């Protein structure tokens, strides 16, 4: 099971990296999302996975979880990571919108030219 999960993570990473290397900023954002997902899964996998999946809950009337439950620690970490990843995505998206309205393009190379022209005007 771990091997399969590892391969899935690898595929997500490859797809994310390929998209991030594109010149278009939207594709870059897509790649960022995919890599966030892959990293979350990798944290999850590193905490070991329990086939059959019992959530880490303390049953009614007990003081401790009973039997073999999933590892709670990575889940807590991933929860934080998902929320932060969402914050990053939302901010980047707004940044892209702003950049498009300022520079009229989402091509990162063209943005470079637009920026230096801008500086030239000011100087």
């Amino acid at each position: 099971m771990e091997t399969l999960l590892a391969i899935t993570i690898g595929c997500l990473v490859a797809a994310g990296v390929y998209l991030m290397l594109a010149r278009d900023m939207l594709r870059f954002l897509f790649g960022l999302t995919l890599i966030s997902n892959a990293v979350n899964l990798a944290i999850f996998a590193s905490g070991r996975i329990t086939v059959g999946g019992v959530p880490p809950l303390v049953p009614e009337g007990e003081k401790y979880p009973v039997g073999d439950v999933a590892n709670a620690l990575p889940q807590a970490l991933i929860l934080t990571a998902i929320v932060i990843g969402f914050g990053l995505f939302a901010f980047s998206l707004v940044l892209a919108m702003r950049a498009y309205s300022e520079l009229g393009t989402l091509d990162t190379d063209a943005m470079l030219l637009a920026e230096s022209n801008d500086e030239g005007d000011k100087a």
Partner: protein
Amino acid sequence: MAQNSDQSASFWTAASIVPPLIAAGLFAFFLSFLHPISAGESVRHAWEWIPSMGVELSFFIDGLSLTFALLISGIGVLVMLFSGKYMAGNPQHGRFSMYLVSFMLAMLGLVLSDNLLGLFVFWELTTITSFLLIGFNHDSKLSQRSAMQALLVTGTGGLAMLAGFLLIGSVSGTMELSELRGMGDILRDSPMYLPILLLVLAGAFTKSAQFPFHFWLPNAMAAPTPVSAYLHSATMVKGGVYLLARMHPNLSGTDVWLWTLVVFGAFTTVFASVLALKQNDLKQTLAYTTLMALGALVLFLAAPGGYAITAMATFLVVHSLYKAALFLMIGCVDHSTGTRDARRLGGLIRRMPITGVAGGLAALSMAGMYPFIGFIGKELLYKAGLESPASVLIVTGAIFLASALMFAVAGVVALKPFWGSAAHMPQLDRPIREAPIPMLAGPVILGVAGLFFGLNSHALQHAVTDPIVGAVLGDMEKAKDLHLWAGVNMALYLSLATFATGLVLYLFHKTLRERLIAAGERLMSFDAKWDSLLVAINAGAVKVTALIQPGILSRYLLVVFSTITLAIGGTILARGLDIGTPVLDGITYVHLIVFGLTVSGAFVAVITNSRIAAIAGLGVTGIGVALVFIQFGAPDVAITQILVEMLVVVLFSVAALKLPTLPQRLPFHNRGLHAIVAIGLGAVVTGVVIGITSVPLNMNLTEYFEKYSYPIAHGKNIVNVILVDFRAFDTFGEISVVAVAAISAYALLKQRKSGGTS
């Protein structure tokens, strides 16, 4: 230059008076060591400097360092007296005096240091102070270039020397020169001998301007005249000679040492004397004769014999005396007439008799005339050349040529301006007068000293040459006697032949100079090469910067991702990864479907050109990941994941109204490379995850949370308890991040187009 000074400006200012007093005090201090040192003793003082590294600030006085210290401080007094008047009235006089004194102290530190690291520090201090002095007229392009050139050439050599010193330290286990002296065999037998030798020679040859590093020295004449007289004839350039003499007990005695020094020294000395004759500017002429002297000193440091070292020691003093005197004399002439052009000066003896006589005395010593100290020096050079273990022909031949040319140059510098024809003299609106006393003191005292030591050679032998030979060869008995009249022998015949040849050269020097200038156009010019070298280095730097800092996002990312791939992948390959047997147990078709969904969503996002398809693909992947979480007992995470995925889609849909569609992918040649890097990094991550999951996991923390969630935090959902109780501050930080992102996004959205807000 004459315009540096105001004729009427007072000599009696702090900037004029203090430096000579400091130098005189130091000179007197070092004189007090003369008696014990000449008796063969040595003195060492040490203070802890960096105790943790065993580095001491240690000073050591023996015959060699004392001679240098006396020359530096003694000539320092005269040069500083001279510059006190020469620079008087210059608004930058205070700055100049400070540089000059700093330089003197650095130079004294260099020759007195016992620790190799201390020596290096002072060595670089002389480089820096000389940079400031050469570039003193900092608004002149020429000064800037010369200063930078001297700094780069000698600084590079200094770094090579430092590497050599560190090697010496690691081979011998000590950095103290006084301890190293007896350890010559350890260094000579070490396999590191050759690298050490080459590195130390690189330092010495750049500092002492040996061919092919000679070109910076004539350019350094852009400095004010006192600087040229002091740094570039009597002191700093002798730093390299000092280093070679200091290292002589440790590094000499091999064929590499012998032949390297002989070849470079001989070539430099002849090459420089020929070029000296070519110059019109008297200061440039003297600069090249300095190169000649440095070459001769290096040449005689090659051999281990008593004659060679005695000759080296004598010539060291001879050269310092006459060269400083002549430079100061040229300074006086320049001050009074406003020119240094050999073709124009003439007939000055009636207007400037004292300067003329003083310069004449120095020039006679330079020419090696009887009974000056220069004569003794030249005789010794010949004797040492005749018994040279390298090649009598090369060494003696080089000295003969150089001495004959020196004879002619001495005439050009000191004879012609005073006794020659005054027909080409520039017309001045003021009468040409004798230079003021502080400026005259240097040439007069140094010129007379040349005669004095010639007549009292045993004083020089007792004070200087015997102790130097003792310091270099370890045995004062090996020193040869200094005789003004040594009888009729081969050296005398050679001297007479030198005079004859020199006289002929002097008589024809105008024709020769024109020929040389004409020929010089065709000679290769190191100085011109220097500029192209700097241009090439700059162009190379621009290219490298453009390559690694192109300002193109995808290229930066490519570098980052490839580095991660190579670093981690390389480590895995190098260490070997034990992934064990693939863990494939318990896989059901549900798992396969979930994983398949996740991957296929990503695949769609990669290949599509449609924004809607891409966002749908991302959604599928997100839901797939959520399903993975559900499958393996993480419902809380799955709920969050689904909520976030929905928000992402909503946000993007809103944004899509204002954003362009995805561009068609260009048939772009880097896409293959991108795919390789992407797949490589994916594979590496897969390997890492497999590697991590195949080793045992420390469950202490998880067990702690499981054990205490309910009893002390009163929560039954352990994940929630961790988030809001055990790690509440983390969660608080996370909320802050989201809040900041939201505020920033809001600000970006509300802001009008640039410049329109405020």
